[in-house]
């Protein structure tokens, strides 16, 4: 069923290229993340095409990625998704990065029967519709908040033996608040203080000074590396020595640089993508070295997630033996044990990837240990 079938819903490849849309935050507030994701996608596309393309039902299709910028806005995302699905006739879409932008795209991709894989939409509700049913075309490559936040809570309880924690969460997206909420739900000790910051904040001295004497055993700080790095730095300089636990938004080589190597000690974060396992896992190792070669920097998590998102599209096309977007969506829901840069994943009934989660520990700015948590 490779031939374009006009009576069938969705888009199919024509000729020997399969178009994949990329709906990303390339400008605006989330541009930093969007641009990292774009690099991951570029790497995946060039790898796939270097091998001749995706093999669908015996025929090879090169992937042609159509990049469009949604300005980090919901309306921009809706418009971009409509353009990709209706005008560009893409077979699938990678993106958007944030939950808000990703949910805004759902009505349009659903109408056009085109699947979308968001590398970083973490809100549990993203893949679920109003009635609790799964959205047929919405997928993600990252953990959802409850899973990740819960894991961090259990880690704090069991491994760090923390009885009291302070939470400092990013309040400008659902990511920080969602993780904080999930953490609180699962954590069995006491949360002595919950403080929020905004994306782009640079000065955390006030928050840290105010919690300093609250007698906690650990800090849970869900957010992105650019702010958490500064929190780590300022906390350590202030003399707060307790462990700091964070989330995969921290898993970026820049974290240690921002915090300063000596400050980045006793820092933990949940991540699907452990640089330590890179030594043992071939897929991860390949990804890391290829990325470094192509972009001259260490691969950040967002690039890895986007890289995997693109591979999910390719895998779904191969598994479903079709370049038709509706078929790809169906096949994507059935992906099993796909090896990716962020682990081996299986898509569950709610379109969330099941993959093992690791917790990395940093000492002097280096990852020294990875705990695997169930």
């Amino acid at each position, binding site marked *: 069923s490779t031939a374009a079938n006009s009576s069938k819903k969705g888009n199919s490849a024509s000729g020997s290229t399969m178009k994949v849309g990329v709906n990303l935050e390339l400008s605006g507030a989330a*541009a930093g993340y969007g641009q990292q994701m774009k690099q991951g996608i570029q790497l995946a596309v060039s790898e796939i095409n270097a091998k001749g393309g995706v093999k669908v039902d015996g025929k090879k299709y090169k992937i042609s990625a159509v990049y469009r910028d949604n300005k980090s806005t919901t309306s921009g995302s809706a418009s971009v998704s409509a353009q990709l699905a209706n005008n560009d006739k893409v077979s699938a879409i990678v993106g958007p990065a944030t939950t808000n932008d990703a949910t805004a795209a759902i009505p349009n991709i659903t109408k056009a029967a085109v699947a979308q894989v968001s590398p970083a939409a973490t809100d549990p509700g993203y893949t679920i519709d109003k009635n609790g049913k799964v959205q047929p075309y919405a997928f993600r490559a990252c953990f959802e908040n409850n899973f990740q936040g819960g894991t961090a809570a259990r880690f704090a309880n069991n491994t760090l033996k923390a009885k009291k924690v302070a939470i400092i969460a990013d309040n400008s997206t659902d990511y920080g608040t969602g993780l904080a909420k999930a953490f609180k739900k699962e954590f069995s000790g006491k949360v002595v203080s919950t403080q929020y910051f905004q994306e782009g904040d640079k000065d955390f001295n006030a928050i840290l000074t105010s919690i300093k004497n609250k007698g906690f055993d650990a800090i849970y700080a869900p957010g992105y590396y*650019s702010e958490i790095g500064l929190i780590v730095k300022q906390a350590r300089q202030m003399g707060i020595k307790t462990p700091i636990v964070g989330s995969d938004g921290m898993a970026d080589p820049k974290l240690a640089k921002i915090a300063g190597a000596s400050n980045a000690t006793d820092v933990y974060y949940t991540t699907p993508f452990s640089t330590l396992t890179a030594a043992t896992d071939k897929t991860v190792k390949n990804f890391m070295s290829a990325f470094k070669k192509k972009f001259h920097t260490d691969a950040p998590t967002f690039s890895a997630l986007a890289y995997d998102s693109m591979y999910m599209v390719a895998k779904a096309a191969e598994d479903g033996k079709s370049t038709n977007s509706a078929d790809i969506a169906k096949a994507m829901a059935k992906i099993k044990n796909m090896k990716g840069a962020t682990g081996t994943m299986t898509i569950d009934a709610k379109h969330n990837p099941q993959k093992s989660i690791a917790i990395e520990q940093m000492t002097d700015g280096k990852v020294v240990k990875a705990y695997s948590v169930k």
Partner: protein
Amino acid sequence: MHTMMQQLINGLSLGSIYALLALGYTMVYGVIKLINFAHGDIYMLGAFWGYYVLRYWHVNFWVALLSAMVVSAFAGMLIEFLAYRPLRHSPRITALITAIGVSYLLENGMSYLYGASPRNFPQVIKQENFHIAGLTVSNIQLLILVVAIVLMVALQLIIKKTKMGKAMRAVAVDPDAAQLMGINPNHVISFTFALGSALAGAAGVLIGLYYNTIDPLMGMTPGIKAFVAAVVGGIGSIPGASVGGFLIGILETATQAVGLSAYKDAAVYVVLIVILLVLPSGIFGKRTKEKV
């Protein structure tokens, strides 16, 4: 009490950056009544310049600071020349939109050229903490405070003691009449932009050193906050901008100190509105009631 003092120190060092930025806003606004939306982005340019010369030319910190001020001054003058001067006789709101355009251009242009993710600013001065009476102050916090105060005093002197200061006031009130006094408004306005932008450039380098990260969008939020600071202080007033900057810094710190961190920005605006309702021209603003 002790914590409060520590928070005050936190507020002052945050505030000194707002104050440096607010000065540029207040001067430009004071002279041509333009909310120079791109001012925060000049601060970003200054930070990037500092980053490059420190990282690739390995210059001394003070050289980086001074050269960033010079470069920012030129950038400010260039922007004024290209984007605002043609609109000198247009409605003010038009120039405001152009300023917004310039701001977008700088933010997105830099993001296009250098990527939007943050970079680490070279830590050329090693941070050391001083403990005085149980309070912790870092050498960098002190540096920022001192540089900010020195620059503010220098600025105040320039404006009070030189003819340029008088000329700026005259151009602000009535550019045509100022011309009749032998003042060239274009020179005055260029000078104003240069001065304000230099301060922003200095703030950029200091911020880079203090927080260690810079990115193309770093000017957006501080830019708006600094404008608010200038307004609170009474826009057009140099001491007002300084006081406003410190006030906002302390206020933000205070909101977080009492545990209302989620409402940090809202609290600033609540205070802003209250101040404006009591003092419709800000703290130091002169309320000139129009004589009819």
